[in-house]
């Protein structure tokens, strides 16, 4: 379990993080999202003991980051947003070096490294120079490095940034596997679709403040506005009158004159009322569908932004 306890970080006059207070349950996969400068990286750097907080604390499995940083590092695996490379080093040597840095006994290292290279599907790149690896392979190697000491908590800063679609899918599958192994995972990412697929919980930060923290399901269900996509067989000016009569907003698709998007507040009953009103008005509807609530729209709603 990770407990952020009234965490505060000040850089001169700038408040990077203000009173972050929440608890992440063990085994959760938590997405850390927010606009640039929201405090995501600061939160991760404090958690990984790279910077001390101005006040407050983070407790990881009962161990304080400020009091016992050395012990906390044993149970945290960190994957930064950049993949720093050492020249003239193979993938195996790269992992071996960090295994030594984590004081992993010599007799355990060869099999551990081979296992991890297998887990991240890089066994065939064992002796390849780290610098020659593609971005996706480098990210997977970085993840293998973060797993060397079998940490209970994984902190991943923008793990999918710069990856091609195939590499993103592979990384997602790998993270699903780690979640299944019971690891607590904290991921910062701007790719919300990936987070929606991976995360059990979400932390939304803005200007250093905690805006929302809940399970993904709960956050998605708080979305107030529904988007209904209506398609008619021919352009229908009547539809606007019906929608506005019920107090909703509608926008027409500039490129497809028979496609309309209705923004409405209300539940399933209100949606049924709208459909009945359209049919009663004789609008030639051939498609009437409510768009699924997306993380993007939840994020925009929670942070008070609009598209």
């Amino acid at each position, binding site marked *: 379990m990770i407990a952020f306890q009234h965490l505060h970080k000040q850089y001169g006059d700038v408040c990077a993080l203000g009173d972050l207070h929440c608890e992440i349950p063990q085994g959760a996969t938590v997405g850390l999202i927010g606009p640039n400068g929201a405090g995501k990286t600061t939160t991760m750097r404090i958690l*990984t*003991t790279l910077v001390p907080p101005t006040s407050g604390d983070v407790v990881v499995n009962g161990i304080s980051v400020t009091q016992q940083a050395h012990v906390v590092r044993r149970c945290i695996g*960190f994957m930064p947003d950049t993949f720093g490379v050492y020249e*003239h080093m193979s993938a195996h040597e790269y992992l071996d070096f960090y295994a*030594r840095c984590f004081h992993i006994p010599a007799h355990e290292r060869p099999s551990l490294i081979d296992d991890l290279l297998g887990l991240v599907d890089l066994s065939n790149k064992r002796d390849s120079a780290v610098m020659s690896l593609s971005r996706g392979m480098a990210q997977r190697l970085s993840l293998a490095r973060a797993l060397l000491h079998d940490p209970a908590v994984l902190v991943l800063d923008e793990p999918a940034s710069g990856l091609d679609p195939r590499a993103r899918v592979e990384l997602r599958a790998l993270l699903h596997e780690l979640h299944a192994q019971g690891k607590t995972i904290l991921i910062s990412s701007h790719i919300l679709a990936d987070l929606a697929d991976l995360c059990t919980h979400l932390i939304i930060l803005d200007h250093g403040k905690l805006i929302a923290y809940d399970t993904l399901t709960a956050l998605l269900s708080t979305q107030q506005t529904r988007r209904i996509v209506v398609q008619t067989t021919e352009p229908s000016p009547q539809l606007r009158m019906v929608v506005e009569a019920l107090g909703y907003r509608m926008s027409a698709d500039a490129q497809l004159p028979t496609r309309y998007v209705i923004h409405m507040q209300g539940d399933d009953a209100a949606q049924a009322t709208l459909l009945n009103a359209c049919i009663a008005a004789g609008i030639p509807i051939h498609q009437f569908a409510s768009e699924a609530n997306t993380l993007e729209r939840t994020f925009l709603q929670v942070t008070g932004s609009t598209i």
Partner: protein
Amino acid sequence: MWHNINPIVIREIRGRMRSPRAFWLLAGFLVAVASTMLLVYTASDLSSSNRATASSDSGSIVFLTLIGTAMLVLLVLTTILSASSIAGERERQTFDLLLTSQLSAGAIVVGKICATMAYGGLLLSAMTPLIAIPLLIGGVDTTELLIMYAVVLANMGAATCCGVYWSSRASSPLIAIGMSLACVFGILVGIPIVAFTVPTIWQALFNNTDILQFFAYFVLPIHPIATLILTNTAIREQAVWLTPVSFLSGTPQLPAMWIVSIIESWLISLAFIAGAIRRLWPTR
């Protein structure tokens, strides 16, 4: 045993030796030292009128030149290499990964120092065939050779620690190298200035030079080249371990200048190591 060595030392040495730069540095170092030695030997040989004493004098001069040149080159090289160590990790964005590992700040700093010293030691041992030449010519014995090597290693250690200290403070390798070289050249240029101006002013004001000898006894050994020259003179005067220093009314026998130089180099190194560890400490 190999498994228990600081991982940073292994990685640094491995990375450095796999780079083609290691070969060029080694070749450049040997060419610089050998050319200087050849020039000095030729000049010494041509200027000697008495062939009987010429051999031992030439041997001593060539040896001193060889060690002096090696010392200067090694001071600059190890300073540059060590200054780019921690700052280089920051630039490569690998430093955070080290900080989040189980390595202590001390292990990181000592690892960087040992790796640079190992490379410096390699360069020093690579010039062994050149050192054999003045030994064959004569005028140099094994004791002098060992003493000079000890002085070179101690001063190289201090320069390395200075580089690592600035590397731990600077945001880029370039700044770290600049600050470290400024320190090293500050000592090389500053100590002679202090050693010559302070006694002159002191004597003009107080007409007493006793205390100045004591002052020089502690200040001059900080200068590596001055230490080599004065040690060479002392050894030729059979004062290998002790040296007389006029102080007030007496002339006590104090440890030789090379011993003071090594001790002072160690103290300077320890101060830089403590500074570098302290610099990394807040995050450890």
